[in-house]
């Protein structure tokens, strides 16, 4: 609740006119630094840059295609995944890498068996939770089905002797614990069948603050930090 007054001065910032130049790569030195500083705090400016980039990409579409040498893909695959194929359940490491740059978010993915993993009809669900009380943002994503729940978290950690517990709440049903969030930015929870069945559209995820080891009663006892409904991320 800091800058209500400032947000009322909704006139176009002078920086907005520079978004096109920035997207073209024409801003230099101090001018560019100032613009980038502004970008960090102004989502509408960032959107303006993204729009210019979208437009300018049309110029790229007109460029003639040239097939790259085969060595490019070979080197890429080696750099991304090493020489050897990893078993599917160890790819969690790869995911960690893939999502490593995602800040201010907590992401959970449930993994299927490798067969289902490559099936065309896999659906990914996501939910996001951000706390209005403390600095904690949560974004979940999960394959529909049994497996591992991948978690990436940012924001504050639980207090000494406390943990964050994740709950799945089906409509009209009592919350079911999906487990205590492990410590660390990128972690994972393994779900049993009952828990996995709750990863579906219409179910709400909630985080509560609980004593170490999780709720002693099987229901949330501490304050609820936030809730978020599971939605289809995309039709894979």
């Amino acid at each position, binding site marked *: 609740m800091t800058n209500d007054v400032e947000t009322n001065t909704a006139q176009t910032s002078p920086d907005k*006119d520079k978004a*096109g*130049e*920035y*997207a*073209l*790569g*024409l*801003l*230099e030195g101090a001018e560019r630094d100032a613009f*980038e500083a502004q*970008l960090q705090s102004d*989502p509408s400016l*960032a*959107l303006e*840059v*993204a*729009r210019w*980039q*979208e*437009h*300018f*990409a*049309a*110029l*790229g*579409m007109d*460029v*003639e*295609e*040239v*097939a*790259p*040498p085969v*060595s*490019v*893909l070979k*080197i*890429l*695959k080696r750099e*991304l*995944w090493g020489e050897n194929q990893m078993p599917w359940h160890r790819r969690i490491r*790869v995911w960690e890498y*893939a*999502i*490593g*740059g*995602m*800040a201010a978010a907590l*992401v959970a993915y449930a993994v299927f068996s490798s067969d289902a*993993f*490559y099936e065309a009809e*896999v659906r*990914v669900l996501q939910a996001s939770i951000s706390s209005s009380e403390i600095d904690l943002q949560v974004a979940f*994503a999960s*394959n529909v089905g049994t497996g591992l729940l991948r978690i990436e978290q940012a924001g504050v950690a639980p207090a000494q002797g406390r943990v964050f517990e994740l709950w799945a709440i089906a409509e009209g049903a009592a919350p079911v614990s999906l487990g205590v969030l492990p410590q660390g930015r990128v972690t994972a929870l393994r779900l049993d069948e009952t828990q996995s069945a709750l990863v579906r559209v219409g179910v709400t995820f909630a985080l509560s603050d609980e004593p170490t080891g999780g709720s002693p009663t099987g229901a949330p006892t501490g304050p609820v930090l936030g809730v978020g409904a599971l939605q289809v*991320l*995309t*039709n*894979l």
Partner: protein
Amino acid sequence: MRTPEQIEKWIAQMALGDRIAFESLYDATSAKLFGVSLRVLKNTALAEEALQNTYFKVWRNASRYQVNGLSPMSWLITIARNTALDSLRTQKNLEISGGSDLMDTFADSKPGPEDLAIASSQNEVLRVCLTELDDAHARAIRGAYLDGKTYAELASDAKVPLNTMRTWLRRSLIKLRECLTR
């Protein structure tokens, strides 16, 4: 070229670590992106390296695609072009905007569904709007985007003073914006 839906599907699968989706995407898009890299860098070895870095970023940032506000080919082309531009500027020992940290910018911008819908329809419009500019001005915009030219280089190419080029560009961008939002 594949449909945007197919490309988005691959990107979504890549976000879950699907290597087959990555290779499919690479097969379908690498010739276009290599063309862009070559156009910017005009050097095969550098363009190959830039292409590798491009797909490296694509793999690493696939999970962010949903919130970046760009249509899939535009997203890929933007990464390829900015990666090539980074390399070009590194060669020239300069540090100028349009670089890879734009990726972070997208992640923070969080456009809604409406913005995404607008974005996907914008692709063709630019070409039309560029024809409404003076030829020399449109050429400067192409030179900046496709050849990674700086203001100084654009001014030298057009044989006009630097400040004239800046004025051209800024006025052109305002005109373009009017046309694009018409």
